[in-house]
Structures are given as structure tokens and as C-alpha cells.
């Protein structure tokens, strides 16, 4: 049976991708950001996951105003990096895992989640930056990826509770897949940041760390945080953190923290990164 072995949380700031692609990742500005991922790169080499369920949001790249899915699961064979205005990132194409993706999609619909199935799309920095952070400069990504795109652009995004519940349902679906696969789930985006208006540049170190604390152990209080609290406390784009709750929900009742990293700033954003293990 497929096994959900770990959860990874990470910011996905486009500038981290730029720093990586331009090999500035060890300079004075980016060094402290990337150093926090060294542990994880080594750990991923040892873990050798077969598949990553990569929860991210599309930043007006694959989906425009014409169609806005709340939860879209990628069931395709492969995905190209999107051209977000400066040409696509020169990173490998993302290879899907349609067998597992379709299994999860079918299971989630039976479990009364109203999924949108996507077979063809480009993937933007929200998905490719975490891959670079976790695997570095590689000729091919060492995992298959199931993109799970969440609407956090047009309001309302899904509630924290709904995200957590989706994670729980994903865990049930993975556990019923007959092939023996090592599966990780990643939640990306955040932490505090605001990219718009006179309030831009907002960072809330205390709140972010409260959120990181809340991901560890057996409490599920984070699922009840209303959207307005993310907006007030962590800036208009801090809402991306609801996507971390899908990852957390998938890990079951109790988690253990293997690695934690927090740094301010990268561009406009507080970087947060955490590696979690489900505890039986």
C-alpha cells in the first residue's frame, strides 16, 4: 500500500527561484534563506520519496478570470513551467503520477469533496520553487508530482477547516492505493506577506511562529482560524497558509517536527519551512 511518510511546509517566493536559477543562493542576502533548506535536501536524498502531493496555488498563471476552481487536482502525465512574464524557469518539466492522482481524485469525489480534475496545465513558481528548494539544481526532478492547486486569489478561499478535512481525505485515499509507494505531501505558500497597497511589507514574526508551533503535536486548533485573522495578522497574501493545513490534516492526529526554519525577509515575505512526520 502507498504510505504517506512525511509532510513538508515551505514558502514559495518567486525570488527564491530567481536566486537559485542565477546561482546567488549563497550570497549575503540569500545565504541565510537557503541554509535553512540544507538539512531538508540531505534528508530528501535519504528519504527518496516516489511521489509528492504538492499543494500550492496558481498565481493567475494556469487559471485566469474565466475559470476559478477551489480545489484542482492534476491528473496529467506532465506539466511545463509557466511563463509568468519573464519566460519560463529553466527547470525540468514536472512529471505527474496519473495512476495515484486519479485514484485520489476518484476517492475524494466519493468522499464528497467537489474536486476539479485537470489534465493539462502549466505550473508556476508556487509549484516549481519548492521543488528547487528541496532538491536543488537537478537535471530531472527525483520525484513524481501530483499538483493540487487551491484558490487563494479570489475570495473566499476554502476555509481552514475544509483544507484540513481535505488533507484527512487525501490520507485515506493514499492509504487505499495498492502499489507500495513512499508519498510525501507538501503545503506551500506564506508565511506573512502583503504584496499590495500602502500596508505592503507587513510581517508578523510572532504570529508566524505561533502557526509553526501549532502544526506540531496533536492539537487541531489551527483549522479554526478564520480568514480575517490571516488577513489582519499576516497580510493579504498570508492567507496562503491555509494550504499548509491540507498537508497538516493529511498527517493524522499527531505530528513530530524534524526540522524548522524561519527567516525574514525574502523579497516582501517571511520565509517559513518545516518538516513533519506523522506519529502513530
Amino acid at each position, binding site marked *: 500500500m502507498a504510505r504517506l511518510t512525511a509532510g513538508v511546509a515551505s514558502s514559495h517566493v518567486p525570488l527564491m527561484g530567481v536566486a537559485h536559477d542565477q546561482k546567488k543562493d549563497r550570497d549575503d542576502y540569500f545565504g541565510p534563506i537557503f541554509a535553512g533548506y540544507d538539512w531538508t535536501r540531505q534528508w530528501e536524498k535519504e528519504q527518496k520519496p516516489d511521489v509528492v502531493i504538492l499543494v500550492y496555488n496558481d498565481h493567475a498563471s494556469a487559471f485566469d478570470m474565466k475559470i476559478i476552481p477551489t480545489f484542482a487536482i492534476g491528473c496529467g502525465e506532465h506539466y511545463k513551467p509557466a511563463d*509568468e*512574464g519573464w519566460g519560463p524557469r529553466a527547470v525540468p518539466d514536472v512529471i505527474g503520477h496519473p495512476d495515484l492522482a486519479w485514484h485520489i481524485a476518484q476517492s475524494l469525489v466519493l468522499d464528497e469533496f467537489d474536486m476539479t480534475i485537470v489534465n493539462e496545465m502549466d505550473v508556476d513558481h508556487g509549484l516549481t520553487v519548492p521543488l528547487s528548494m528541496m532538491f536543488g539544481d537537478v537535471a530531472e526532478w527525483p520525484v513524481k508530482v501530483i499538483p493540487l492547486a487551491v484558490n487563494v486569489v479570489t475570495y*473566499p478561499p476554502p476555509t481552514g477547516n475544509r483544507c484540513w478535512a481535505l488533507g484527512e481525505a487525501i490520507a485515506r485515499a493514499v492509504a487505499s492505493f495498492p502499489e507500495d509507494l513512499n508519498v510525501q505531501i507538501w503545503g506551500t505558500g506564506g508565511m506573512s506577506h502583503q504584496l499590495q*497597497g500602502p500596508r*505592503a511589507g*507587513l*510581517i*508578523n514574526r510572532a504570529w508566524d511562529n505561533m502557526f509553526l508551533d501549532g502544526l506540531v503535536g496533536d492539537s487541531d486548533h489551527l483549522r479554526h482560524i478564520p480568514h480575517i485573522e490571516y488577513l489582519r495578522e499576516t497580510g493579504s497574501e498570508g492567507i496562503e497558509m491555509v494550504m499548509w493545513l491540507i498537508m497538516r490534516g493529511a498527517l493524522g492526529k499527531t505530528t513530530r517536527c524534524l526540522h524548522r526554519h524561519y527567516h*525574514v525577509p525574502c523579497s516582501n515575505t517571511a520565509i517559513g519551512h518545516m518538516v513533519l512526520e506523522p506519529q502513530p
Partner: protein
Amino acid sequence: MTHRASQPTDIHAYLADLEDIPGTRVFTAARARQGYHLNQFAMSLMKPENRARFKADERGYLDEWAITPEAKKAVLARDYNALLDLGGNIYFFSKLFSTDGIAFAEAVSTMTDMPWPDYRQMMINGGRSPEGVRSIREKR
């Protein structure tokens, strides 16, 4: 068996709260509708041929889109606060930052009252504090 959500779902109260944050325009349905074609214009810049055409003749390219004269003026002036007021969304307009070859944070700084070097230094110093900018009505 009746399904009920985990939290109160009064959309009117929910939307009213979203307007209570200082210096922030949350991308609600109202803004998404107002800025529909403006955002679709910005998104069109994902194609290199469109970027080239826009750069060659910004005004002419804008005239192909069903957007108001006011919105066209704001695009030409790169007045991002005005664009937010007209329903623009920052993820759509990041395609314009990129077309201009300007860093995301620098473009963002133009919406604040700080010049870019000061904004950059504020971020390095730990960013803007949420103190006092959480809520208009609660003054906190």
C-alpha cells in the same frame, strides 16, 4: 446528515470584515468583476509575442481591451494603487512588473509611502509591524 460548515457563513459580515483592513484591497467578487478585463489584459503578457507588442505600443495594445480610459491611464502610469482601486489584482499585474523587468518587491514598494531603498531596508529590518494596521474600526 445535513451538511453544515464549520464556521458562521454570513457572507455579508464576512465581506464587511474584508473592507476593515487599512491600506488593503482584498480581491473579492466585487473587485474581480470590476477588474475582469483589466486583469485579463495583464495576464495576456504571459505570451512573449504579446509582451513585444505591448512594449512597442502600450497605448495601442491597451486599446484592444475592454477597459476604461481611467484604467488605461493607470496602466500607462504604472499607478498600482489606482489599479487596485479599479479591481486589479497583484498576481495578474505581476506579469506587468516582469514585462517591465522590475523586481517584484520594487514594484510593490511603489504602492507604499516609501521610496524603494527605504522599503527594502524596512524589509531587511523585519518588515512592517501589524501594530495599528489590523483594523480600521477597532483602531488596533
